[in-house]
């Protein structure tokens, strides 16, 4: 029976085989601990967590989209637009901050729904639809803010701080969003429909799944996650910036793909994405700690990303 081979392996080994990027993360952490004495302190590790938060939250949202076989280039811009909206409605428009938060999330969801409508009804390739939204959302953020940063309401800015003495709230938000993403992907109708659509859209449709509606939900979720990421980002800076999170879409997609998802759809896990985002954050943190020169940093980051995924694919081939 084909099942045997898998069953014979230890559960730990099986888990590792399923979540390959973890191995790369461990190697990276060990290497950095040896290279820099500052790396393995609690504060620094919490810093890494905080620094991973925004990318991770964006990447959770992108995981939904990538699982359906799509791509969302607009997440960075949508994050900025949502944050600007929040700050603007709370400050210039003078609305109570909880309302402003709701409005801001709604803006994120709206952007996602527009993406999905262009894709599902307009038959645009996701790349084009979300590239258009990348420009539109960024432009609107600039228009609303008139190009200047807007201070975040105090109450919301607290999100950028700590709970108690040590626990950074962005890390908590990241974990909560990760759990939500995992539950959606694994346990809900929509989540499983995402895999079906990404694996074989025609089969999904012929099995009675309303593909268009599920795409609306998928991109809407991605927009909502982007909004949360934008709010966390702006809270950390205590100010919403129209240029915030520019280019983060590539980081988000990279985190998802490092985490084992495939851009052709049907594969991807929240945990993998989380590990992917951590790898990127650890890498940047480590290079700072090691004081690698700015020009070399990009080279090193590129090389280590390639190596990390290489470790994973080679190991997987060995297993097979």
């Amino acid at each position, binding site marked *: 029976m084909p099942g045997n081979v898998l069953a014979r392996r230890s559960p730990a080994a099986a888990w590792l085989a399923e979540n390959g990027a973890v191995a790369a993360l461990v190697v990276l952490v060990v290497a950095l601990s040896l290279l820099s004495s500052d790396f393995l302190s609690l504060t620094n590790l919490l810093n890494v967590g905080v620094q991973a938060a925004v990318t991770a939250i964006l990447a959770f949202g992108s995981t939904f989209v990538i699982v359906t076989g799509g791509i969302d280039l607009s997440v960075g811009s949508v994050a900025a637009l949502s944050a600007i909206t929040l700050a603007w409605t709370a400050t210039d428009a003078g609305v109570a901050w909880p309302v402003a938060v709701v409005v801001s999330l709604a803006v994120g969801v709206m952007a996602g729904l527009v993406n999905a409508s262009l894709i599902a009804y307009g038959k645009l390739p996701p790349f084009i639809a979300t590239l258009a939204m990348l420009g539109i959302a960024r432009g609107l953020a600039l228009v609303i803010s008139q190009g200047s940063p807007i201070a975040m309401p105090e109450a919301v800015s607290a999100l950028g701080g700590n709970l108690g003495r040590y626990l950074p709230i962005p890390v908590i938000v990241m974990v909560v969003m990760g759990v939500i993403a995992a539950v959606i992907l694994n346990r809900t109708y929509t989540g499983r*429909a995402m895999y079906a659509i990404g*694996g*074989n859209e025609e089969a999904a*449709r*012929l*099995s009675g799944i309303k593909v268009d509606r599920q795409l609306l939900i998928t991109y809407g979720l991605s927009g909502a996650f982007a909004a949360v990421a934008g709010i966390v980002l702006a809270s950390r800076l205590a100010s919403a910036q129209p240029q915030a999170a520019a280019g983060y879409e590539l980081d988000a997609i990279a985190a998802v793909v490092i985490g084992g998802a495939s851009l052709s759809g049907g594969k991807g896990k929240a945990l993998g994405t989380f590990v992917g985002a951590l790898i990127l954050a650890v890498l940047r943190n480590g290079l700072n700690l090691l004081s690698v020169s700015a020009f070399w940093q990009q080279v090193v980051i590129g090389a280590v990303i390639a190596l990390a995924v290489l470790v994973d694919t080679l190991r997987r081939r060995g297993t097979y």
Partner: protein
Amino acid sequence: MSEPILRAEGLRKGFPGVQALDGVDLSLCPGEVHVLLGENGAGKSTLIKMLSGAYRPDEGRVLMDGRQVDIRTAGDAQRLGISTIYQEFNLVPELSVAENLSLGRPPRRFGLIDKGAMVRQARELLARVEVDVDPRTPVARLGIARMQMVEIAKALALNARVLIMDEPTAVLTTSEVDKLFVLVRQLRDEGVAVAFITHHLEEIAAIGDRVTVLRDGRSVAEVPADTAQDELVRLMVGRPIDQQFPRRPAELGEPLLKVTGLSRRGAFDDVSFEVRAGEVVGISGLVGAGRTEVARAVFGADRYDSGEVTVRGRRLPPHDVHAAMEAGLGLVPEDRKGQGLVLTADIGENLGLVTLRDATRAGFVDRKGQRTAATKVADQLAIRMTGLNQEVRTLSGGNQQKVVIGKWLVADAHVLILDEPTRGIDVGAKVEIYQLVNELTDSGRAVLMISSDLPEILGMSDRILVMARGRLVGELAAGEATQDDVMALAVTEVEGSRAR
């Protein structure tokens, strides 16, 4: 006769360049198996897709229990109690068998999916179709025949009043077909209306009650299922066919392909055989016997652990398709969509794929020459198309299969491995392909033919090898062998076999 559950009237459907269906009526009655018969491209699949919500008719209407219904989506059809097994696989390869079985309607508890219940339901369904797979296996890992059984189980899960099956037996071996027929009869007796498409004429009398024959998008006759096969053929292709298996043994020459001790853990073990010039060697066996795996390993598509493959005296390096082709091997794979066709390309392009290298001078491809060769093969196989630049994706299933075979005919290989070559091909075209096999062997080439179609193996091979559980368990001379002989060998328990 009772009232039909489903009635279609005057259905018409056109695609760019072709009127696929031109005013067809069809009634499906409870407790009756209605067979749809027709040549490749006659419009059978198009017809049933309009009943299942995959296509919308240009004209005509569909009635359920005498009331007109509007089937816009697959969901609508499901709600009306229509369940469909499509000709092309409609499974999600990345998902597990259990998830595929409950695709679109997973069991839920408190709004969340109940994975335990899902697996339990899957076990029951799989037991019903007598398939032994773990419901948690990803579908991508299953062989093509098991995928089909999963597909059948999925259709049963709906407990539908109308069950439509588009060539469900094309990829099954005799024993699975028997299992399927038991199931279908049981459903029929429970009052389900079944529509059944097949190119295997002997199945019609075995399972069918009535037959509707389609030709060129029109229904040309409705006859009882016990109509003589010759008459059915005549209705279908418009002329009689003299002989279904016109094998003409050729003079045997040197061994062209020699396989010795080929083994791969978990797939096949110590496989040795040879194929001589002018010979057709058939390989028979049950689903999962490892025939496809051996064929792929011989061709260099997959690796093997030990053994050797020699073609025309030259030993082939393992896992090197290019070297195998240079040596004169060719492989028509069993999975036309997954391995045979470039679906985004047109027919001409696909037919020229294998010979692309030979048609290249100084890096440039002689596209005119390619087209000329493609035209010839397309004519030879009577591929039903609007032209060489039609996308393969839009061809009917049987015509796609002809393209897969066609590209190797262009290539002129010395030893051609055919894995389920006539799957989904109509009787007329089958005979054309058999004639081609005869021509190949006449000119001193050799054919290794894997087929789950026993009459075909018996009728077309000179020698039959039988595989079971990854091993060769016997050899029969074609002249004397019967279906029972082959089956007896195929179910042999292999003592001490480690292959599985």
